[in-house]
């Protein structure tokens, strides 16, 4: 059983290789910004392909809104790099191909005994990795909509940006 993953808890500072093979820590990737942390089954899943296409559409807002995306799966880095390039995603993908975190986080999709992938889950995080909201994406409609993500990031940004109310 892994650590609790509820709103208000601090998400573990996972360290994994990225799609290009660089060792990355979640705390370095957050760097003072809100984060969408996204665990997905793998490149082969049509639901993940559909959801990731939605995130690619949302990155046009995120790229000007000081908000980071991080996607995690058990796919090897080279597979993630090709998947990322095909999608047109410009954020970091982390590879847990050694399965060092999937059990620790208790995020295994036990219903898939062939691939034993990550249970599709989306977290919105504060920059210090405190969980703002969790979305269980086992069924597709459990995943966050763009409107829900917008609302989450508005609430996080309002809390962390000292000048949310414009200087007078």
């Amino acid at each position, binding site marked *: 059983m892994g650590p609790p993953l509820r709103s208000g808890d601090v998400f573990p500072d996972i360290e994994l290789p990225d799609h290009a093979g660089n060792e990355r820590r979640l705390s370095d990737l957050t760097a003072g910004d809100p984060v969408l942390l996204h665990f997905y089954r793998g490149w082969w899943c049509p639901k993940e392909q559909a959801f990731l296409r939605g995130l690619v559409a949302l990155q046009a807002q*995120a790229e000007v809104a*000081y908000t980071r995306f991080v996607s995690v799966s058990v796919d090897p880095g080279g597979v993630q790099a090709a998947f990322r390039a095909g999608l047109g995603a410009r*954020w970091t993908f982390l590879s847990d191909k050694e399965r060092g975190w999937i059990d620790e986080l208790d995020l295994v999709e036990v219903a898939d005994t062939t691939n034993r992938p990550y249970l599709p889950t989306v977290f919105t995080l504060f920059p210090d990795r405190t969980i703002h909201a969790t979305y269980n994406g086992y069924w597709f409609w459990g995943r966050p909509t763009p409107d829900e993500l917008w609302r989450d990031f508005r609430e996080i940004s309002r809390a*962390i940006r*000292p000048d949310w109310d414009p200087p007078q």
Partner: protein
Amino acid sequence: MSWLWFALRSDAPASCAASAPVRTVDGTAAGHLVAWERSADRPDGAAKIDARAVDPSGGVGWISLVLPGESETLPFDDVAVAGALRIVLALSPAQVFSTLSAGDDRWLGSLTATPSRDERLASDPFARLARPMVLRVDAGFLGLTPALPGPVIQRYGSDTPWPSDRFSRVQL
């Protein structure tokens, strides 16, 4: 995040934070990369660079240096600059990447560095904006900028180069 002043000069000044000679692909001497500590006084012709791009203990490397003349620079928010930044995020990370800037709103160029003269250097997306100089840099200058998280392409403050990757204040 911090920044330094940066320029390509014919000679290394007596006082600077770091400098290293550079050569063209055919071995011809092409001057010196020079960095100065952050200060209110801009050295003549210098631009701001992400401080992590410079390390006086760094090794030999290769750079693609895009330095349009001051009359040919673009606003930092020009769609051509934004488009090149998107491609930088899509490519494999380089050892060093930093835009070069001055004032609040001007893009003055970019520096991309790799340990060897490789495909990443040849695919510099800023080469579409101005002719790049591909140069070999001696030891003593090149640092390491962390692989960029993406997808943010905005600067963290109008007086910083990109990627300088965070605001100085967050309320937690």
